[in-house]
């Protein structure tokens, strides 16, 4: 009995470690939370002012990269006034949800 329990525990731990998919956020919740993002990232050709460059395309970007970018802004390791303010206001769950939503858009292809 103990052996079976131990095996089961070991297997579920292995499964949890091997499945980063479980760590992902909620796509639908992320869509709601990403409403604000569209104010700048949702306007084709929209440019940041001073310095002037296009606001990057983030729909279809990679999940882990999006999370890393938001964490860097939140910690001040990457500086941009608007993005730092946004990222600081996000919880860990918000970041997971938003990154899940944005990365899920890669499957639709460029539209």
């Amino acid at each position, binding site marked *: 009995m103990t052996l079976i329990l131990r095996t089961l525990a070991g297997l579920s731990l292995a499964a949890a470690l091997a499945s980063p998919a479980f760590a992902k956020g909620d796509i639908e919740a992320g869509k709601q939370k990403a409403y604000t993002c*569209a104010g700048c990232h949702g306007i084709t050709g929209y440019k940041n002012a001073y310095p002037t460059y296009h606001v990057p395309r983030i729909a279809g970007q990679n999940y882990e990269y999006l999370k890393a970018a938001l964490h860097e802004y939140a910690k001040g390791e990457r500086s941009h006034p608007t993005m730092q303010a946004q990222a600081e206001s996000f919880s860990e769950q918000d970041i997971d949800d938003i990154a899940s939503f944005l990365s899920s858009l890669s499957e639709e292809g460029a539209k």
Partner: protein
Amino acid sequence: MINRNALRIALYTALFAMAVPAFAAKGDVAAGEQKSKVCQACHGKDGNGVPNMDMYPRLAGQYADYLVKALKDYKSGARKNPIMAGFAGTLEEQDMLDLAAYFSAQKSPLHDLSQHHD
């Protein structure tokens, strides 16, 4: 009188210089492809990434001027990343323009977040 004219000329020259970004150098897609070999290990052959390495961003289909800004920030240290600082530090402005021109021209699912919210 002369001083005023001189001032006016100086002002117009300054305005003209600011208003003409056409002088800005442009990137070359073919040259960028040549220079992109070293990027491929992490960002994929065409900048669309490598499977199971999604901590690295897609570069394909990204705006070229944003990519140049990212490279400049890595080089200056404004954006901190040990791997990218090493690569960007070796690049001159023309290299950055060429790389950005190449990656932004590649097919990609990257797009603006315009049609997803009603």
